[in-house]
Each structure stands twice: as C-alpha cells, then as structure tokens.
C-alpha cells in the first residue's frame, strides 16, 4: 500500500507548500467576520464558467479575506436551489453566493421561486461579460441586420440555440426579438456546450454566448460574430460591432458577483468587499483570471448595489412592462 500513498503525499506536500507561500501575508487587522471558513457557493454544476471562476477565487482568497474559503458546488434548478439555501443561511458572512443576473435580477421577478430578490445584499461584482451573437458561415445571413431581415421574411423559421428559460442567451434573444420586432424560435439546450454543438452541427442557425464560450470558434473562423451586447466593442474582437451601432438597442452585461444573505451586518459586507477588491488587484490572481479568458471589472458593494438596482428595474420594465 505504501508505494501508492507516497506519490500522493509528495503531491499534497507540494500543493501545501504552494498555497502556504501564497498565504504568507495574512492580514493582522481586526475582523468582523466569525472565526470560521467562508463557504463560497457556486449555483451551477461543475464545469461551467462560474465554477471555473469560483475555483480560482477560493484557491487564492484566503490571503485577502483572512479566512479560508471552501468552494461548494451546488447545482440544480438553474441556480435556484443554491440561491434558496444561501438566502436561508445565517447572515454573518460565512456563506456567500456566487450570483449572476438571472439568479439575482431576472428569475425572482418572473418566476415563482423559493427566494426573493431582496433576500440578498450585493457584496462585490467581480466581472461581467457581454453576449456575442454568432452564426455559422453556412447560414444565409452574416450580419445582425441580415439575420433580422431573414427572420422577418421567414417568421418563426430561424431556430437558435438557447440555454435555459430566462437564462443569459434566452434573455438577449428575447431582447433582440423585442427590439427588432421579429419572431424566431429558441431551443433550450441547457448550457453553452450543447448550444454551440448544435449550432456547429447545423441543427440550429444562431446563438449568443459569452466570449469564453464562442471566442475560440470566432478565431478559428467556424463561427461568425454578428454583434455584441455591450456599450462598446470588445478589445479582442474589434471587428464585431455592438448591437446598438447596428441599430438594435440590446445591452446585457452578464456579471458574476458575490452576494450575501440579507441581514448581513454592514461592516461585514464592507470588509468582504474590501477583501475582494484587494484580491482583484493582485497580479497572481489577475494572471489566473486572464488564463481562463476572462478579466476583472470590479465594483465595490456600494457601486454594485446601484448598478444592480438599475438592472433589476430595467428587467422589470422589459419583462413586466411596469
């Protein structure tokens, strides 16, 4: 048995050494956080962009928050299960949700879920990505204008890959359909992986996804970018116009941010927000984030609360017309 455990021991020893050097500067200042590890809950199954970001955050976070972080991956119900669990946990900063617009802004307003939008207080926005509308080079439309025209001439015949009801892709297509006043049919495929597969396989005609999902295919030329749902063009894809430039008012920034259960003391929220801010300024952290094709657009708890409230109001108007 010994010769099996040896490599494992060696490996864990080197792992421990690596993380020790990273965590050598634990902050000495007084803390409002309970003296226990923080559980950082990812609401989606392992393998998506959320769990990838969470893996990096929990691996390096201790140095900046003064508490070790435990990554809890709790998928199910499109994120609703984990959100409900965090919403019902003790509000003392020991359990945090890695939230996003669908979980924290859209679905609680349009679906009957076991938690409310107000069950959470924003702590820190880590980053956001826009969606890029894409198609394959074989399709009869190669710009967003041609797509809308084609959909107008053939109502309900453009079939696109969607993710989940009220998900990221679902929402931007709803916005496009509303802005351009056309009918298209979405097939909910459950996630970016199958959605791109069906598009590449010729079963669907269009898709809109994060740069981390479609980026490589744009570079390889297997997908064509139509427009991006941001207020300015992406640095990496300067040739793809924004949807606004093309005349369709579709702006949606899919943020990833840390949410705490409502009732968490203000000083705890502020301390966590500061900790995450220091983390997002760290070079090592930034290098890891850039390696997964992502970057940082940090917002502290105050700025994040403002932009979140604006987003929630905009979605209420778009979906419920209030």
């Amino acid at each position: 048995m010994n010769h099996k455990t040896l490599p494992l021991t060696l490996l864990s020893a080197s792992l421990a050494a690596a993380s020790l050097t990273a965590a050598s500067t634990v902050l000495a200042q007084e803390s409002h956080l309970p003296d226990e590890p923080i559980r950082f809950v990812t609401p989606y199954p392992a393998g998506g962009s959320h769990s990838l970001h969470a893996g990096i955050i929990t691996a390096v976070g201790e140095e900046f928050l003064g508490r070790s972080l435990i990554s809890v991956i709790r998928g199910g119900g499109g994120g609703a299960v984990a959100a409900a669990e965090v919403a019902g946990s003790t509000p003392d900063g020991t359990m945090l949700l890695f939230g996003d617009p669908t979980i924290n802004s859209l679905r609680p307003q349009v679906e009957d879920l076991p938690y409310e939008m107000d069950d959470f207080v924003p702590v820190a926005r880590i980053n956001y990505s826009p969606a890029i509308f894409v198609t394959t080079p074989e399709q009869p439309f190669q710009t967003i204008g041609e797509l809308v025209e084609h959909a107008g001439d053939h109502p309900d015949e453009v079939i696109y890959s969607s993710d989940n009801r009220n998900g990221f892709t679902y929402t931007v297509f709803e916005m496009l359909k509303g802005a351009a006043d056309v009918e298209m049919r979405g097939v909910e495929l459950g996630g970016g992986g199958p959605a791109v597969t069906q598009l590449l396989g010729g079963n669907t005609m269009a898709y809109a996804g994060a740069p981390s999902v479609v980026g490589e295919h744009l570079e390889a030329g297997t997908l064509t970018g139509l427009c991006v749902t941001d207020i300015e063009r992406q640095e990496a894809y300067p040739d793809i116009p924004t949807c606004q430039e093309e005349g369709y008012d579709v702006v949606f920034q899919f943020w990833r941010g840390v949410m705490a259960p409502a009732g968490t003391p203000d000083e705890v929220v502020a301390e966590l927000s500061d900790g995450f801010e220091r983390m997002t300024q760290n070079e090592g952290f930034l290098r890891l984030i850039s390696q997964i094709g992502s970057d940082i657009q940090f917002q502290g708890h105050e700025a994040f609360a403002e932009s979140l409230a604006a987003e929630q109001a905009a979605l209420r108007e778009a979906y419920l017309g209030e």
Partner: protein
Amino acid sequence: MIDFSILQQGLAMLASPWTFLALSGGLAGGILIGALPGLTATMAVAVLAPFTFFMDATIGIPFLLGIYKGAIYGGSIPAILVNTPGTAAAAASARDGYALTLQGKSRKALELSLFSSVVADLMATLVLIVVAIPLASIAIRFGSPEFALLYLIALTMIATVSGGNAAKGLAAAGLGLLVACIGLDPMSGYQRFTFGNTDLLAGVSLIPLMIGMFALSEILMQLTHPPEGQQTAGDVEHGGERLRWAEFWVLRPTILRSTSLGTFLGSLPGLGAEIACWIAYGLARGRSREPERFGEGSLEGLAAAEAGNNAVVPSALIPMTVFGIPGDTITAVLIGALMAQGMMPGPLLIQQNPGFLFGLFMVLLVTNLLLLVFGLFAIRWLKQVTRIPHAVLYPCVLLLCVCGAYAVNSSTFDLLILVFGGGAGYLMRRTGFPIAPLIIGLLLGPGFESALRQSLVFSNGSLAIFWSRPISLVLLCLLVLVIAFLAWRGLKPKGATLRLPWSRRKKPHNANGGDS
C-alpha cells in the same frame, strides 16, 4: 506526415519523473475515489482542478487524467464486492459482478473487470488518436431527434434486465421515469411534484438514491435474510480462483462489441458512461448464447458492462480535442483546467500545440498500463474483503454510503433520499421487483425528455422529424429491429430451441428466464 519534433516533444513530457509521479498519484487516488460510493470522478476532478492551475501543464493535466481514469475503473470494485456501485457508470457491473462474489468468485470478477476495462480503454484511446477527426464530424451531426431515439433504444434495455416478470420490470421502469419528472421542468422551468420543497427543485439526486437502492437495501436484506452459511469459513481460497486466459479469450467478441459501442456513444457530446454500460450489457445479452446466465454471474455480462463504460473515457475526449466541446461533465472540467494553463482545447490546440496533444495521448496510453499494474496489486488485497465478517463489513459500508451520499451535493436532504431509496429498494427486493429498470428509468428519463421536447421545438410539434432526417431514420429502424428482436425472443415458445441455430440447441435450464 509525422513530424518528429512533435514526437520528441510529446515523449519528453512523458519522460519527466514528475509527470509520471503525478499520473500515478492521480490514478491511485482516482481508484480510491471511484471505489468510495458517492465520491464521483466528476467531483474529484472539479475539486482538484483549481490546484492544477498552480502546476505546470505537464504535471497538472496528467494528474487530472489519472484521477478520471482511476475513478471510472474504481467504481466497479465495490459494485462487485458489496453490490454497491461506486459510480453510476458501474451500476450494470453490480449485477453479474456481485453474483460472482456470492458464488465465491470475487477474484475472477475483479480480474475480469480490470482486464476488460484496460483492453476497452486501450482500444478506445487508439481510436481517439487515429480517427478522432472523422468520428467527431459524424458525431456532431447528431441533434436532439437522434439523441431522443438513442435514449429510446437504451430504454428498451429494460427488457433485458427485468428478469422473469416483464410486468414488474415495466412497473419499476415506469416508477423510475416518474421519479425523474420531479423538479424543475427542463424547458419551461415549471415546478413539478416539488410540493413547495426547495431541495426537490433540483430533482431527486440520482447517486444517493442509487446508493440507497443498491447498498442500503442489500444491508437490510443481510439483516433480515442472512445468507445460509454458503460462503462463511471453508472457502477453498480467499476470493476463489483466478481468471483463466481461456475464459477471457472467448469473451473477445463481447468486449470488442462493447468497446465499439462505448467509443461511439462517448464521442457523442452529452452521452456518458452511465448509459453506455446498460446498452453494452443489453447488447451482450441479446447476442449471448446463454442469456439466461445474465444476472446470475455471467462473465460475458460483467465484461460487456465494464468494457462499455471504460471505452467512453478516451472517446469523451474526442469532441473536446476536435471541437473544444465537452463530451461529458468531466471533460467540461478538464477544458477549464486546460484553459487555465493557457491552452484552448479544440481546433486551435491541434494546430498550435501538437506536441502537448501528442504527449497527452501518450499519457493516456501509459495510464492504461499503469492501471493494469495498480489494479492487479489492488486485487491482491481486495479479494480479502470477502473474508471480513459481515458484522464488520456492512457497518463500514453503511458509513461510507452515508458520507458518500452527503458528499455529492453537500446536502442533508440527500441523506433522506438515501434512506428512502434503501427502504424502497428493500421492499422491491422482498416483493420481487427488479431494481435495475428503476435506475435505468431514472437515469435516462431527464435526457430523453429534454431531447424529445427539443426535437419537437425544432419541428414545430411534428413527429416527422424522427424519420425525415437520414441519421434518425437509421436509428428509428434500429429501434424497431431491437424491439422486434426482443419480442421474438420473448414470445418464442419454450423448448423451441431448434429454431435458434446458434444456441447450440441447448435447453434453457430455468424456465423463468433467470434474472431476478
């Protein structure tokens, strides 16, 4: 064609002692994780992937691949020894594997499982290396209608594991499909049968329920119906005799079939080892000369299930290396780990970093040989498990089951599901309802539902989509053939063996079909 600098670069990676060490460590850890019920390969890879971000790619990625392979193989160990599949992919192996253990042939079963796994894995890896690109370009043509039909074909395998009583088998499968409906509707997000319970939104977790049905109910059976001293002391040799070469050699058509099937299913993005093992098992029984032995310790059945699920591992890497699309949830995590190393899996990796890719392929082949060594070493100890008195063994199994069921989702609700599954499984065993169909129904239900409903969205509600597409037409014909074949076998009057030329005109020994 072959660029020697690439070969050199790949081989250099393999020669590094650190790569080798990481690989061995991952493999040993993976076997252990797979063998512990509830700890899955997906979870292990997902939890350990962030640590590889800090390692060199030539150490981190082989480490993860080692875990992946080890865990898929490891799942069969508890399935064989204590009727508790360590992973969902090993559920089919529990049937004949555990039956062999009860007959005092656990060593033979463990060795057969190891050899079938290694051979299947080796062949599938060669397929990955040689024909990944053409295979992937066929696989990507498979859309939702084709998936729906593949799920239907897999569902017909219920007939082969229902045992003597088809009605009870169908009832169990129906129950499994119903349980699969619990949770959020995959298309509209509507809550079904959740009764306002938040934990049920995600549906009934498969792994806790499966552990309950297999392991907990087994323990309850041991409590109320202790085996009649058939395998206590006086066993000739611990674990019984070794697998003889001749026994393995006659299985080569079975293993070859299962491997081709597993390789093909694995290359379809989204289908994993859990479904491949059952189709392989059903196929082997259909082609077998002694189908009545399936479920009663058939070497063919065990070899088919194990070859089927292990062949999926290398071929799930096909969509990843060719298109950058995950073949299953584990490869999705692997893609993340590769990206963190600055390598985008997919068409660009082949062009930009062929040396690394070649090195990975070499690592896969070497992992296989290591698996053989580790496995043989482990079996020397594992066969002793059968010597442990049941009074000690089963409490340990129970403890591992509870920990494993909790670990899947870090959810206490899953422990209730475990207990519920145990109770239900016990009642089903006592009343003669087979458990396997229920598990198949639960496993395939959600995938089938999504694929079917997606197809109908594609076609605007018309069923014609299932025969208007060339691939789905072929699959539809296959489905009809499978059903016709099963019906012909089932309706064939007993004793009419003369019509069955390849059955060696052997009279079936047990009239009620054998399986239970």
